[in-house]
């Protein structure tokens, strides 16, 4: 309870502090360069040059300290030893190149990258197309969208229960093994099967992300001009052709946005692997490997930072693409 009042106090202080800053600094600005009187014109001009920076200042400060500075600090750390004191040049990266665990992690990340965005977009498109055509579509959408509100850890528990294993002869309480044994196979410990266990982890993320893809693609599908569809129907297009030849090409832009957004999530994927296998049995991914080096046993910030920068490097092309898109949109 005490901490809740601390939290409430922080909210009040924070909100009050923000308001005081914005209101107070504006007041001072108006006092220094009043917009009335002999130099009104010059003063307004001056005030208008300063004011945007008052509005945007706190945000810039936060962004600089919490997102920009860490990138450079990590870069610096990745060129230093475990404790961050001695300069080691590119040794950490050289170590990465030869490390078997790192190779496993990056290959797994690439596997995730190939499978998850494609699968989530595919299921999202399917769900969008299907739910837009039925009467209970909104209810159906709600349910498919729901996993988005569930934490990765919660989803981990939910799916670990699906994958639960009981020795042969016992009653299987995991859904997957129950179905599997009903088909006459012996039960499996799904999360320890080399290589394929990656797919069982990916299923969790696909399950979470499909709703996101569905919502956006559904809006895009509904935005397609009616005329193109009517014309295609009049020309005798089958539903199949209608979908793949007429609708999908018109929403390529949106599909690309969905795809890249999910790709970013995949590159940073951590919680699911962390709680379900912790990178054992050949399921290591970059973010979890980085966590291992930074926070487990004897921390090695140099190597951990190097891995973090590899993730950053993988994200960068998408970042550039996003910025170019945003700029083009602003110009147009």
């Amino acid at each position, binding site marked *: 309870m005490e901490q809740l009042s601390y939290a409430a106090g922080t909210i009040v202080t924070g909100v009050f502090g923000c308001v005081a800053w914005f209101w107070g600094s*504006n007041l001072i600005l108006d006092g220094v360069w009043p917009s009335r009187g002999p130099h009104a014109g010059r003063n307004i001009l001056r005030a208008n040059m300063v004011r945007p920076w008052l509005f945007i200042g706190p945000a810039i400060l936060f962004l600089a300290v919490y997102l920009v500075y860490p990138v450079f600090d990590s870069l610096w750390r990745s060129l230093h030893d475990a404790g961050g004191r001695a300069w080691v040049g590119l040794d950490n990266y050289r170590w990465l190149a030869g490390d078997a665990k790192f190779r496993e992690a990056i290959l797994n990340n690439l596997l995730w990258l190939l499978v998850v965005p494609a699968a989530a977009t595919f299921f999202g498109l399917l769900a969008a197309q299907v739910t837009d055509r039925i009467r209970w579509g909104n209810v159906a959408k709600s349910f498919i969208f729901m996993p988005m509100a*569930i934490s990765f850890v919660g989803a981990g*528990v939910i799916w670990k229960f699906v994958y*639960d294993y009981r020795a042969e002869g016992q009653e299987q309480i995991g859904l997957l093994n129950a179905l599997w044994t009903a088909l006459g196979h012996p039960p499996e410990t799904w999360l320890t099967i080399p290589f394929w266990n990656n797919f069982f982890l990916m299923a969790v993320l696909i399950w979470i992300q499909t709703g996101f893809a569905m919502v956006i693609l559904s809006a895009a599908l509904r935005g397609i001009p009616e005329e193109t569809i009517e014309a295609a129907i009049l020309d005798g297009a089958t539903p199949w052709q209608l979908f793949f030849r007429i609708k999908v090409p018109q929403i390529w832009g949106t599909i690309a946005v969905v795809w890249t957004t999910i790709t970013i999530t995949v590159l940073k994927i951590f919680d699911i692997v962390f709680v379900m296998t912790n990178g054992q049995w050949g399921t290591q991914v970059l973010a979890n490997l980085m966590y291992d080096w930074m926070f487990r046993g004897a921390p090695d910030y140099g190597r951990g*930072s190097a891995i973090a920068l590899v993730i950053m490097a993988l994200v960068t092309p998408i970042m550039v693409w996003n910025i170019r898109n945003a700029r083009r949109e602003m110009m147009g």
Partner: protein
Amino acid sequence: MSQIAGTRARLVWAVNLAALLLVLLWTVPTFGLLVSSFRDRDQIAASGWWKAAFPSTASAFVRAGGADTAVQEGDLWVISGTVLEKGQRLDAWGVTSREPEAYRPGETAALKDGQSLTVAADGSYRLSSPTAFTGGRAMRIFVTTTVPPRVTTENYARVIGAEGLGQAFLNTLTVTIPATVIPILIAAFAAYALAWMEFPGRALLIAAVVGLLVVPLQLALIPLLKLHNDIGIGKGYMGIWLAHTGFGLPLAIYLLRNYMVGLPREIIESARVDGATEFQIFRRIILPLSFPALASFAIFQFLWVWNDLLVATVFLGNRHDQLVMTGVLRELMGSRGGDWEILAASAFVSISVPLLVFFAMQKYLVRGLLAGSVKGG
């Protein structure tokens, strides 16, 4: 014509069926855990959750009382007791592991040395012998029992109390609320400046915000933890509030700016002509009109902070009473891997609030997603 109608009807069927299948696939895993959270440990182990609505049958053996519990009745020595626990019903019983269901309730089995065993339907048994029982291991009685379906809320009581989830709930709430409120305010002002004020470097700043949207948090952990230690914040709520504020700002600014740019220019221009200051315009016009976007971001940030594990693990202490719910859940997955009644109930306590927010505010969530993504395409 009728042929076309037939194809159409079949198509409608197929679409409905496909939708139903998708919905089932997407809800069944969660539903299974929800059902399990209301079953007790034995029920969960005895049968799959999909059988929860039906009576479950279990086979086990019970040891009869030892020789020392025998009492003499006339010229017979008798050991008696019960083979059932509360709530169980006896279906069949037996005296060997090869034939554990040889006898019905109420029947009597003749054993070696003139002994006999009767197990009644209510579970009471009576083992009688013409000679005194000698030591050694007591005999095993194999029983097949049925437990009627039963709903229990004990799991929830237990995880909230003994497993410390109640405290974790408070901790999560403490982290989440300031971390949701503070960035909104900071972002709203910044978004207004980026949307409606002219100044050099504006385009560059917008590009920077778009770029920062995707910076991996992983990069920020160690540098910021060091920074917090150096300036004396250390590990604790203040640190995590600041961190979440920083991490949430790019999305907040991006969403709000996109929304504010779309507001009608005439309103803002005419207010300026009327001599309203920028601060007044912001407070009286922009803020109220931007409510949908503010709500969207608030929901995003709330869900993201509530569900976060990584930032909390790094920026909060790791003592059990300092953990947030995702942290406790992770700990339980490690230490109580097989105790599904605990895990299921804990998972549901932790996802109940996000689910509630989700179903109540879905409209704003969808709107926010669309503002954030479709425009970019």
